[in-house]
């Protein structure tokens, strides 16, 4: 056996991995962000566009909104689970067909002023769309401060096995969860995952208060992707509504009753108005039985929220 044999073996191994990349690319053809963008492209011209993360994806009932808003209204929900303002900006940039439609941007907590943050560890799942929808724009948000990070961003964006790794891992996670459920009481799930898991996303109350306080004290502006979204919408002549998404009463009690949030919220309302948008305070619009978990509305809650939003 000589080194040539080993080189051939390495080359074949690399070829198999490249083939695996191609298989992953094929598997990811129907990933949720790609489906969302295809749906938006194929949809009729919308009169009302909805952007945001999973709270909007779960919370907006297009039919209920359109019925409440009146005849001739067509709602298009572009909410995307597990996503950030950068991904929302990327989605909105692709909506040339729907420019001019009223824009509703749903948020909660300090998402409007938190600076964009994303790296190898966090740009996964739906957020991985930053690597393939418009990597130039995304890397300008996520890696503006470092040539090395920008280089790594561009390198990763060329390797489907890395970009779409959560697509593969999610299947393994589903296998693990189904094994885990054997012989155990069933856990409540919704389309985003296990209901009890979302409680883990709740911030620490002290840390939350500090974040609000700092943003108010420093006069933090609306972050760059939100500013870009509002600016693009205004340029196309669209009305912009920034919607404070419904939250369960327990959540509001723990976080939104704090003085730091109240002060931050007043500051936020001024910021939003200065940007030419309208602030919609919908946090207390839906009762407890309208929630599927600690963050997301269920079907009844979505209907109630969407109808009320449509009637405004």
């Amino acid at each position, binding site marked *: *056996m000589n080194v040539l*044999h080993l080189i*051939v*073996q*390495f*080359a*074949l*191994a*690399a*070829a*198999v*991995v490249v*083939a*695996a990349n191609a298989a992953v690319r094929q598997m990811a053809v129907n*990933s*949720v*962000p790609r489906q969302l963008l295809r749906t938006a492209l194929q949809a009729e011209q919308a009169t009302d566009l909805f952007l945001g993360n*999973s709270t909007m994806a779960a919370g907006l009932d297009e039919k209920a909104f359109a019925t409440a808003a009146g005849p001739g209204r067509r709602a298009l929900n572009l909410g995307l*689970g*597990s996503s950030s303002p950068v991904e929302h900006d990327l989605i909105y940039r692709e909506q040339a067909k729907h420019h001019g439609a009223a824009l509703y941007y749903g948020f909660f907590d300090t998402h409007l002023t938190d600076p964009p943050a994303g790296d190898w560890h966090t740009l*996964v*799942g*739906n957020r991985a769309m930053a690597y393939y929808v418009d990597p130039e724009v995304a890397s300008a948000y996520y890696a503006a401060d470092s040539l090395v990070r920008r280089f790594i961003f561009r390198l990763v964006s060329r390797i489907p*096995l890395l970009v779409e*790794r*959560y*697509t*593969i*891992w*999610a299947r*393994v*996670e*589903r296998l*693990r969860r189904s094994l885990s459920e054997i012989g155990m009481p069933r856990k409540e799930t919704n*389309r*985003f*995952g296990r209901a009890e*898991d*979302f409680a*883990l*996303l709740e911030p620490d109350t002290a840390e939350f208060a500090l974040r609000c306080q700092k943003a108010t004290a420093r006069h933090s502006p609306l972050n760059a992707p939100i500013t870009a979204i509002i600016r693009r919408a205004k340029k196309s002549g669209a009305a912009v509504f920034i919607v404070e998404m419904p939250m369960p009463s327990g959540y509001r009690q723990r976080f939104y009753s704090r003085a730091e949030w109240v002060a931050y919220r007043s500051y936020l309302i001024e910021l939003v108005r200065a940007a030419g948008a309208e602030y919609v305070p919908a946090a207390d619009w839906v009762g407890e039985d309208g929630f599927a978990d600690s963050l997301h509305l269920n079907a009844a809650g979505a209907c109630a929220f969407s109808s009320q939003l449509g009637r405004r």
Partner: protein
Amino acid sequence: MNLILWLKAACEYLGGERDDSPRGLPLGLRSPLWGVWWGVLASLVAVFCGQSSKFIYIDF
């Protein structure tokens, strides 16, 4: 019994534990197929190595 011993030897050979292949297994160490085997193993590692990641959302 011989079959079982042969299978054991084959598993050990494919697993890198033995240097000599069991009689009847047409896979010498020079064979390029080892590269294919490595590629399959590496791909399996890539598929299964995310289990320490914290999954909250899985709608993708």
